[in-house]
C-alpha cells in the first residue's frame, strides 16, 4: 500500500515545480489517483511545496472534496435531502453508522465500506434512501438497514501505517 502511494506520488509531483500555490492542484491529483489523501502523501507534499504540514492539513480539511480515508469497495451515500430528512434520514444515518461502526467520511478497517452523506440523491419519491455504489436502496426503515450489509465482515486487513511509527 505504502509503496504504491510512494510511486504514484513521485509521478504526480514530477509534473509540479514545488511552489506554494500548487498545493490545491497537487492535493486534487492525489485524491484523484488514490481516492483520498494519504498522510504520507500530505507530509511529502508539505516538504515539496515548503508549506507547513499543519497548513497542508488545514487547507485540505477546509474543502469538502477531500477525504482522509480510502474509499471502501462499497461506497455508501446516505441522502440528507429535505424529503429524506423529514422521513427520518437522521435515524437512517445513525443506524448505518452503528451497523458499519464508522462515522460519516470514514472507511471500515477492512476497506469494505465507506460512508458519506449528500444533500440530495435526486429520487425524493423513494425517500428515505441511500446509495451503495450506484444502486439506490429505497423507502428505508432502521430495520431494513442491517440486511443491506454483508455479514460477518472479515477481520482488519492491511490499512494505513500507524501514525505512531518512527519513520518520518
Amino acid at each position, binding site marked *: 500500500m505504502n509503496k504504491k502511494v510512494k510511486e504514484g506520488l513521485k509521478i504526480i509531483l514530477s509534473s509540479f515545480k514545488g511552489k506554494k500555490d500548487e498545493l490545491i492542484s497537487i492535493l486534487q491529483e492525489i485524491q484523484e489517483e488514490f481516492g483520498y489523501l494519504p498522510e504520507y502523501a500530505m507530509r511529502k507534499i508539505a516538504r515539496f511545496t515548503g508549506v507547513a*504540514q499543519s497548513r*497542508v492539513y488545514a487547507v485540505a480539511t477546509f474543502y469538502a472534496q477531500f477525504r482522509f480515508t480510502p474509499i471502501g469497495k462499497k461506497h455508501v451515500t446516505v441522502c440528507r435531502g429535505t424529503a429524506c430528512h423529514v422521513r427520518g434520514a437522521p435515524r437512517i444515518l445513525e443506524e448505518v453508522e452503528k451497523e458499519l461502526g464508522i462515522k460519516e467520511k470514514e472507511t471500515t478497517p477492512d476497506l469494505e465500506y465507506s460512508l458519506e452523506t449528500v444533500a440530495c440523491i435526486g429520487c425524493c419519491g423513494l425517500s428515505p434512501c441511500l446509495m451503495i455504489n450506484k444502486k439506490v436502496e429505497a423507502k428505508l426503515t432502521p430495520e431494513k438497514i442491517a440486511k443491506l450489509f454483508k455479514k460477518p465482515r472479515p477481520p482488519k486487513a492491511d490499512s494505513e501505517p500507524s501514525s505512531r511509527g518512527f519513520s518520518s
Partner: protein
Amino acid sequence: MDKITLTINAIPIKADRNISVLQAALKNNIYIPHLCYNPDLKVAGVCRLCIVEVKDRKLTTSCNLKVEEGLIITTDSPQIKQLRRVIIELLITNYQGNYPKLSETDDSQLRKVAAYVEIKPNRLRRLRGPTKIIPIDKSNPFFRRDHNKCVLCGICVRTCRELQKVSCIDFAFRGYDTKVSTFANKPIAESNCESCGECVMRCPTGALSPKKLQTASRKTKTICSYCGVGCGMYLGVKGKKIVSVIGDKDNPVNHGSLCVKGRFGYDFINHPERLTSPLIKKNGKFIRSSWEEALKVITKKFSIYRGDKFATLSSAKCTNEENYLIQKFTRAVMGSNHIDHCARLCHAPTVAGLTQSFGSGAMTNSINEIGKADCILAIGTNTTSAHPIISLQIKNAAENGAKIIIANPKEIDLCSFADIFLQHKPGSDVALLMGMMRVIVEEKLYDATFIKNHCENFESFKKSLGNFNQDFVERTTGVAFRDIAKAARLYAKYKPSTILFAMGITQHSHGTDNVLATSNLAMLTDNIGKPSTGVNPLRGQNNVQGACDMGALPNVYSGYQKVNMPNIRKKFELAWKCKLPSSPGLTHVEIFEAIYNKKIKALYLVGENPIISEANSNHVKNAIKKIDFFVVQDIFLTETAKLADVVLPAASFAEKNGTFTNTERRVQRVQKAIEPIGKAKPDWQITCAIAKKMKAKGFDFSNPKQIMKEIASLTPSYKGITYERLENSGLQWPCLNKKHPGTPILHVERFATPNGKGKFMPLEYKPPAEVPDSKYPFIFTTDRSLFHFHTSTMSRRVEGLDILNGEEFLNINPKDAAGIGITDGEMVKVCSRRGRIKVRAKLTDICPQGVASMTFHFAETPTNVLTNSVLDPVAKIPETKVCAVQIKKIK
C-alpha cells in the same frame, strides 16, 4: 521621533507614529477590550472586541487602525457597548469553560473582557451553547489543550508560526467544526511541537494551560542553567520550591523567549534525589557524614597529593566566581596546573584556532546580530536542538530574506529554512570550506584591500588552496561542486555574512584546522569586525565561556593569561601570596591517561560526569578504578560520583549568587532564589572551606561579589565588571575599565593578535582518524536532542522531558536498515573497536546512507563507549563526531 496627537475618550494623548490606536490606548492606560491582540504578534483583527468609534468614520477595530494626527476616538459609546456585548456573549456561549469561573489562569484575558463588559448570566441563558464536547488533549506532559475553551483567536497559531516558526498547529476543518489542529488532527505530543510553551503563555482563555499550575509568591531574576545561550528568566518561588519559570522580556539575549528545557525543565532543583549531605565511602558503601568529617578526610588526603599528583576538573555549570576559586585552589594551594573542564571536549579547538588567527577565542559578534545578517553559514550546528533560542535568530533572518547555508552531515530541521543544504560527509569540513574559498579566490570575490591592510600570511594560504581542486573536494565531501560554488558565491556576495558553528566543527582529530578554515573564510571576504558578521562558535554549557575565561584551563590563568609567562606568573604569585607552578598542566583526556598510568593519584571533580560524556568512556572508568583518592562535588549522585571516595553536595544555580558568561561573552548575574537543599552548599563555599581547612590564605570570602572584585583586579578583560554594573543586561567582555561599555563586536579596528593582524592559515585535508572499513562499515556520529542536556543529570530528572524523550535511538537510513534486515523500533547491536551497546533503531532519511547517529543523553545506553578518544594535536579534543561502527541485528 516626533509624536502624533490624538484624542481617546476626550483625553488628548501623544503616541509614536506607526503604532495602532489599541497600542496607543494601552500605553496610556486606557483599556479597550481585546482577545486576539498580542504585542509580540502581527495583528489579526479577528475577535472584533476592540472596535471603537472614530469621529466622521465607520466603526473600526482599533488593533489594525494606525494612529493619525487628530483622530477622535470613542471606546465606549452606547452603540459600541451594545455591539461588544453581543460579540462577547456569543464567544462565551461557545466557550464551555465553566462561566463565570472562565479559567484558572491568573490573568485570563477573556475573564477580564467579560468583567469589563459586565456579562449577565440571564442574558447568556437565552443563547444555545455548543452541542459537541471535544475530549481534552492531555498528551503533552507540560500542558493541556482544551478545545472547548478555545475561542479561535489564533494567538497560538500565530505564535507557533511567527515566533517559533515551527507551524505545528493551524486552523483545520470548516465553519462550526473549525478548530486549532495539528497535522492530521493528532494529539499534540505526536506532532512536531517543540513544547516551548510560548503559546501556552499567551493563550487568553485558558484553552491551553500548564499542567502544573502553582502561583509563585515571589520571583527571582536569574539566568538559565542549561545551554550557553544564557537566557534571562524569572524563577517563581513558593516556600522552598521553584514552581514556575517566566522568560525575562528585558533580557537582551532571549527577549522573553524560552525553550522547553528553560521553561519546563526546573523540576530537578527540588528533586528528591538531590544530594543533601556529604557522603564518605567506607567498605564500598556511601555513609552520610557531617561537613566537618568530610572536610577532614579530604584535607588529610589532599595534603599528601600536592603538586603533579593532583588534578582538578572544574565545571562549566558553576559560576565564574566558583571556577576562579577552583583554579586558584588547584594552583595556589595544591601547586598543580592540572586543571581543565569540559570545554576541552567541546570548544578547545575554537579557543586554540581563533586565538591563532584572530587573537581571541570567543564568539566575535552578538546573538541579536545574527537575525540581521544577509547570509548565514551554519556549519556543524544543529541549532534548533542545541541552542533553540539562537535558532530563532536564524529563522528570523531567513524570513527577512537572508540567504541561509546549512552544512551538516544530517538533514537537520533548519534545512527547511535553507537556500542551500550541503550534506557533507562527517569530518570533511576542511575540504568543504577550502573548496568554497577556492571558488571565492578564483572568482575574485575576496576583499583584497581588507586582506592587505588587516591580515597576513595570505599568499601561503592561497597556495594551500591548490590542493583543493573540484575533483578532490567532490570526492572528499560527497557534495556536488556546483552546490559548494553556489554557497561560496552567496557567502561572499551577500554581506554581512556570519558563520555559526558548534561541535560538528570542533569534535574532530583535526578540529583546530576546521576552526581555522572558518576564520580564513571570514577574513577572506572581510566578514569580521562589523555588525552581523564574524565567526561565531556556539558554546554548549551555560558557563563554559566563563569557565574558560576564569582560567579553569591547564595553561592559563583568568583572562587567558599564560602560566608560562614569568611576568604574568609573578603578578598572580604576588596577588595570591604563594609560589605557582610554571609549566602548563595536562588536559582533560590526558588527566585520565595520567590517572590510568598512576601519575596522578588524586582527583577533585566538580559538576561533571565524564563516565558518560568522555569519548571512549570505558577507558575513563578503568582509569578511575586506579585512582587513590577521588572527590566529586555535584548536585546529584551521577554515574561518575558513584565511583568517588567522598561526595560533596553542591547547590544548584537556583540556590546561589554569582555570574555566568554566555556564548556571546555576556557576563550576567545569577541570583539566589531559594536556600540550598538540605546540607548542600554553593561550590564557592565548599572550595573555600577545603582551602581554609588546609590553612591557605586568600579564601576568606563572605560573598561572590568579593570574589568578582578579585577577578576584576587580576583579569584585564573583566576589569570593568562589577555586580552593580551587571544589574540590567550584563556586560560583554572585554570590559576594560569601570566606564567601558563592554564589547559586542570583537576585532573592529584591529585583531587581538600581538601585531593587530588577522593570520591566514594554510590548511591541508586530514581524514578522520577512523574511517569505515569492511569490518566496521558505518560512520558513526553523535548529536543532541532538544529535550535533554548533555549527560541528562538535570533534564532526565524532569519527568516531562523524560516523557517527551525517554529513550535513545540509533538514527539510520532506511536503505541501510534494509541491508542489515532491521525494522523501525527494533533493538540492534552497535559495536566499535572500543565498546558495544544495544539500542533501538529509528529509520529516518535525516541520516544519509552510510551514516548512523545517536545522542549521548542516556546512561543506560552510554554512546561514548563507542566513540574514539584520538586527540586533536593542538587542542587535545577527542574525535567524538566520527568513528566507525558495525550495526547488527540481534538474533
